[in-house]
């Protein structure tokens, strides 16, 4: 049957076109809006949070475990989302916790993206045994559950925000390496790379100035979706008590702290950080899913 012809797009800048196509999905726009809102709150936590949850002196110990909407008898402030076992305002702790979660996740994804892409592109460009060895390592790494690798790494490394970031980079780089390699393998045989080689440009220049920009779209998609994985992984590690230290609680740790109170019906200590975590992950997934649809060259035509 004759395939319906798609009318050729009017000349528009690629970025504008991308934004137009992104706006086609209301769900993705909703996801992006939510994500930006949460990012904004997390970044501005010290200014928008009603309380500094790290400042022990500001806590009123008799205000502990208050349900949402309670008004403090001492300071007169309203705890919109209640207080936890240490009388911390759940809303404030949540905003600060989101900040920690995002810092860890974004840093680790950027690190993994950088390392993985470099290794993947080098493997594709050089080929031969270098490629074979690197890809075997990637296969090996990917055949082991990420959570287990991270757990064992942290048991060796010890606690700390930097250690968590390092562990997450180590478990994530392989995904980027594999994607970067497979896209670079396609690009490697394109005319423009051959042309650059004929011009006798250096390998580094060819890889990073010529091939990299063309390999970016799939990497961006992977990075977006991986951000959600990183947030979930960090939350899981912290929930288990082997992630970030107590002094810098992330969402996962806040949820763990509230876990014991949940059994006695004081749901809010875990529930609200949990909702924030779920909202964050779902928003990123909505954006990532749609990005994958519009950046996938197979779907483009």
């Amino acid at each position, binding site marked *: *049957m004759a395939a*319906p012809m798609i009318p050729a797009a009017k000349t528009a800048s690629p970025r504008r076109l991308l934004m137009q196509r992104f706006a086609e999905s209301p769900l993705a726009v909703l996801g992006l809006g939510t994500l930006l809102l949460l990012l904004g709150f997390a970044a501005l936590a010290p200014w928008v949070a009603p309380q500094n949850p790290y400042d022990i002196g500001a806590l009123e110990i008799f205000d502990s475990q208050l349900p949402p909407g309670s008004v403090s008898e001492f300071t007169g402030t309203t705890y919109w989302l209640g207080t936890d076992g240490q009388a911390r305002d759940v809303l404030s702790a949540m905003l600060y916790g989101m900040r920690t979660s995002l810092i860890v996740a974004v840093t680790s994804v950027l690190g993994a993206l950088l390392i993985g892409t470099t290794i993947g592109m080098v493997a594709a460009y050089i080929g031969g045994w270098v490629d074979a060895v690197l890809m075997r390592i990637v296969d090996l790494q990917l055949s082991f559950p990420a959570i287990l690798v991270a757990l064992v790494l942290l048991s060796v490394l010890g606690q700390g925000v930097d250690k968590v970031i390092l562990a997450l980079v180590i478990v994530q780089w392989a995904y980027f390496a594999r994607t970067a390699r497979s896209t670079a393998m396609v690009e490697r045989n394109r005319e423009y790379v051959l042309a650059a080689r004929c011009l006798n440009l250096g390998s580094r220049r060819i890889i990073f100035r010529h091939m990299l920009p063309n390999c970016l779209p799939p990497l961006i998609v992977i990075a977006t979706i991986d951000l959600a994985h990183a947030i979930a992984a960090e939350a899981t590690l912290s929930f288990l008590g082997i992630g970030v230290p107590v002094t810098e609680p992330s969402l996962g740790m806040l949820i763990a702290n509230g876990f014991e109170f949940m059994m006695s019906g004081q749901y809010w200590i875990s529930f609200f950080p949990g909702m924030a975590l779920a909202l964050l992950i779902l928003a990123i997934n909505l954006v990532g899913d749609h990005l994958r649809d519009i950046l996938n060259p197979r779907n483009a035509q």
Partner: protein
Amino acid sequence: MTAAERPLLSVERLQTHFHTRAGVVKAVDGVDLTLRRGEILGLVGESGSGKSITGFSILGLIDPPGRISGGRIGFDGRDLVTLPEAERRRLRGKDIAMIFQDPSMTLNPVLRIDTQMIEAVQAHEKISRQAALRRARDVLVAVGIPSPDERLQAYPFELSGGMRQRIAIAIAMINRPRLIIADEPTTALDVSIQGQIIHEVKALCRQTGTALIWITHDLAVVAGLADRIAVMYAGRVVETGTTAEVIRNPQHPYTQGLIASVPSRETRGHRLYQIPGMTPSLLNLPPGCAFSARCAHATETCRTAPELTETGAGRAFRCWHPVGDRR
């Protein structure tokens, strides 16, 4: 009309439309066909002419977004279009069977041949596995498969293309259907095997009195096979008649073009004729004769669709300017 005189199959004004996002594709748009018991009909047309869709419509295998939107398909006194799906299923494979184009795709790759043959029998009859297996073996012998017992134990990938198509034919014949629809069953095969298969299918149909619709784009194939020919263009039958009449005295310019583009002794050394232009898109087809854009004889009159002109029993064409008598 008594039951004996009544045609086995009579397709009347059949319309099968596909409702796509870009618009309605009228793949089959008013097709008429008649077939008597044991008769062999060659359904000829280019790809996109709607010949395969016509075959699938008769079998009731049109999937969304496609739909039979009009007409009737009379089969042995019953209208298949309005028949409930449960009863249609009972007809499929039992009274009407089909052979597909690509033998490498028609047999399920993970099921053994015996499984695929036995289930075809057991879907329509309460019969033991052994009895069904015996029948499967007999049919394999009938379609000319050597050492059938071994083949029954095989998986499709272990067999050659020709062998697979013979098995597909055997499956179609296993329930002694009254009508077989063969959708270009030889195009995917080697030329040497093509001839054999055509010959065998013809012989089997004659032997068992099975009617056959042979769908093809190749006029030369049906010339030696069919009793009658129907030529399709852009979702309509543009000419029909006995094989001899259609080939010796074509009335529609399109049929004439098709015949002229078949290589023969006379055309040897000459450049083969080629019909100018392309098959029109079936999406938003303009009114009038669909062939007019490619036709040398087209006039203003062709802006309106020509009705079917009957010039004798079973002889008809759809053209304002028939070309047959001008030679």
